[in-house]
């Protein structure tokens, strides 16, 4: 938890730095710098970034923002509608929903971010290996992906979780991460394949660069942008998926709150206790939409074909 606290603040600080950083015009802007400038000019995307920063900061600072712990029961009458003392109301056990939503973000957000980081890493490694491999190895590796992709991810997760039982948070990250990299690997593989035909790849070969060096130095920086876009969109997706799992009772196990299982707690009587799904639902929807908007803007900003357009 303490690790996440500092990590969360660091990420938030880094985001603020990038967003606020006054890009002094440099004489020779590289492709990354040009993309950043374009992203920053995208209004909705920047709004999303600020919203996400706010969410990150709020959840990270939860212990100092709310006076009730997320698992403190009977601090007020149970299922009480929002009041000044408990702005998000209380749940069936008399726990403060505001506290649970904030602490829930402290679980849901790192789960989403870390599992996407994991799947982007695995996907890139697998895809790049496949893309540089011989025709036959590549074929086998990709057919394997096709086969796994034929199973819907949610069903795959439900099946695994049914066998696994109640997962701990690290287990959940591991499961979400290891089931989410198939799409990324295809993307990277296609990019690397296309790069192989580029003359500068042949030129790098002609200059004596090793396989590994060709991959790390020459190919990967060129496939990074689609991976970044896919990962950003992926975070929004994972937030939803984790909520769905939580709702099904397969995700983060109570009493530890997550955005999904708070809604689950109120699922018995949705209309009577509307605050039980409106507030965590809002958090989920805002996060997912923000990541999607930011991802779309990143895609535009990183697309080399958009040079000169905006």
């Amino acid at each position, binding site marked *: 938890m303490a690790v996440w606290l500092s990590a969360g603040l660091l990420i938030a600080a880094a985001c603020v730095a990038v967003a606020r950083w006054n890009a002094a015009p440099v004489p020779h802007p590289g492709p990354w710098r040009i993309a950043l400038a374009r992203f920053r000019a995208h209004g909705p995307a920047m709004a999303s970034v600020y919203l996400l920063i706010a969410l990150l900061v709020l959840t990270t600072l939860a212990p100092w923002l709310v006076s009730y712990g997320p698992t403190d029961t009977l601090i007020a009458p149970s299922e009480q509608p929002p009041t000044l003392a408990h702005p998000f109301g209380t749940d069936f056990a008399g726990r403060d929903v505001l506290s649970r939503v904030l602490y829930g973000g402290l679980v849901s957000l790192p789960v989403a971010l870390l599992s996407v980081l994991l799947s982007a890493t695995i996907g890139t490694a697998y895809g790049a290996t496949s893309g540089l491999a011989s025709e036959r190895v590549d074929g086998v590796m990709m057919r394997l992906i096709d086969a796994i992709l034929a199973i819907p991810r949610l069903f795959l997760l439900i099946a695994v979780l049914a066998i696994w039982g109640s997962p701990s948070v690290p287990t959940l990250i591991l499961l979400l991460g290891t089931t989410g990299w198939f799409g990324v690997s295809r993307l990277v593989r296609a990019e690397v394949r296309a790069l192989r035909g580029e003359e*500068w790849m042949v030129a790098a070969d*002609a200059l004596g660069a090793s396989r590994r060096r060709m991959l790390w130095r020459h190919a990967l920086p060129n496939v990074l942008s689609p991976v970044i876009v896919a990962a950003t969109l992926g975070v929004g997706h994972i937030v939803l998926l984790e909520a769905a799992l939580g709702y099904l009772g397969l995700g983060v196990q109570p009493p530890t709150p997550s955005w999904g299982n708070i809604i689950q707690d109120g699922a018995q009587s949705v209309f009577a206790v509307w605050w039980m799904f409106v507030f965590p639902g809002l958090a989920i929807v805002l996060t997912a939409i923000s990541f999607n908007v930011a991802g779309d803007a990143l895609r535009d900003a990183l697309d080399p074909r958009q040079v000169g357009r905006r």
Partner: protein
Amino acid sequence: MSEPLLSVRDLRTTFPTPAGPARAVDGVSFDIAPRETVGLVGESGCGKSVTSLSILRLIQPPGRIETGSRIAFEGQELLSLDERRMRAIRGARIAMIFQEPMAALNPVFTVGDQIAEVARVHTDASRREAWSRAVEMMRLTGISDPGERARQYPHELSGGMRQRVMIAMALMMNPPLLIADEPTTALDVTIQAQILELLRELQQRVGMSILLITHDLGVIAETASRVLVMYAGEIVEEAAVRRLFDAPHHPYTEGLLAAVPRLGEARERLAVIPGTVPPATDWPTGCRFRDRCPYAWDRCAAEHPPLYRIGEGQWSRCHLAEEPERREPQSGSRGAGVLGSGSGDPATLSN
């Protein structure tokens, strides 16, 4: 001639295709002496580039160099080296520059980074040493303000500047052999001359050999001392550059020379060689040029011509070497007799 630097013997490179193996390079042999510039000419699809990629063993599978081919370089047999030792040769002992300097540079790195990369691959130079050598190399290739230019990305440079960057990359390790594959084709004529001049100057300074691949005889005349003419995967003529221009022997060489416009020669139309190179999956039997040759007779269909020795250092893959009287055009031939006649007539080769 002293011990050759590069000695290619019976090089055969084939690519499997649905129509059978394409024999892109089909039994090519030649030598390059130290400090010598050899031109390799021919039209598109005759196997020039495949020859150069074969020397560096950069043929992408399923294409392959057939067993029996030999490429000796500095006394080593390149085709039997393992991949690691081959990599040590690429870029350091044999370097290559490409036709499209934009396409051959990685778009996401500064050009300085890319030049320095060569030193980082082949030596244990530190980042800073490699960088300063890269800047020095850029200065040597005539790039003004190299310290500043090194920080630019390929898209910020002009075509000529990019080609200079490619040359700087290629010469970073002082390679004894430079393969230049159409180094000036993508450039403006004025820049073309500058780049050729630069190559000549650098060659004298560092004392390397150059294999210059081009379809432009003008480039060859300015730069090379000896010329190899390639057609349909084979070398059809080899001669010193003066000899080739003054007394070409092979009808294909004649045709190529006639197709070059010259000042002071009135022509209504440029000469062309009729037809195109046949597909590499299906070389004709006998002489591969016979369908396009103005002198072809029955022997050309029956017998594949060997490389005949014509004179000092001149070789030609044409039966005319044994039956020179047939060079007079047959009546009703395709009208190519005006070739090299210098009569000022419209020397149109097309039917």
